[in-house]
């Protein structure tokens, strides 16, 4: 099982890039939740989540994005999902989330989404 990891990078225009790697399930979702909550506590609501290296997501993981979407929108920010794998997109499709989230293929497009 690939190790789960999260890294953070601040981009120009107050945008935060959060890179997630590994399986995002009931075992790991709290780590992502904590990372996003830390950004919120710092008043950071313009967030790109890079999902290139997330091969699997369950509803526990998807639920983190639902909560984060609500939080960012309330504060006038946005959460953009960058380059999700087909497996991850399939789950978002099943939950009807692909129409709700801003989903982009590359970093340039992600930055331009704000």
């Amino acid at each position, binding site marked *: 099982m690939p190790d789960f990891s999260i890294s953070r990078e601040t981009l120009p225009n107050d945008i935060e890039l959060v890179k997630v790697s590994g*399986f995002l399930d009931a075992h790991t979702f709290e780590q992502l939740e904590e990372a996003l909550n830390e950004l919120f506590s710092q008043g950071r609501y313009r967030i790109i989540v890079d999902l290139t290296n997330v091969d699997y997501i369950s509803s526990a993981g998807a*639920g983190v994005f639902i909560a984060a979407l609500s939080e960012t929108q309330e504060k006038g920010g946005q959460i953009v999902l960058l380059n999700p794998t087909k497996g991850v997109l399939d789950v978002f499709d*099943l939950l009807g*989330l692909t129409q709700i989230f801003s989903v982009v293929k590359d970093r340039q497009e992600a930055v331009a989404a704000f």
Partner: protein
Amino acid sequence: MSEPVRRELTIPNETQYLAAVREGVREVVTLGRFPEKELNKLTLAVDEAVTNVMEHAYEYDLEGEMHIQVVLEANDTQFVACIRDWGKAFDPTAVPTPDLTRHVAEGRRHGLGIFLIRQIMDEVSYRSTPEGCNELRLLKRAKASERDVRGAVAVRGGRGL
């Protein structure tokens, strides 16, 4: 119809073991020659069912002898998963299908697993035995157009679920 491939896993009530359950699904689907197109969704459905047991039947409680039995069986025509626990009775089939639009609007992150299980599986049934066992059975039938026509190699047979 090919011989079914069967795997039985008994895991502790800890989320770190979800990965082993997902690996078990991958193994029976592949070896049983159930259409691989369905692999990700079947993996997700079983993961969600086991996660629900951890959350509801055992409430993530690590104390005491709490374990979950997962029996997986597949051939080229159907995939069946039986998830058994001995915790608090929880019938996921009795839970109303969540209104996803409302869920998202309210930023709620729970309750999506049952929705996914129902979306993915053809049959979902639950029973509680007098011995205190809760059993959730998930079944998915292969579409005739997606079946592997090469025929299956039985790796290990077993009693039908």
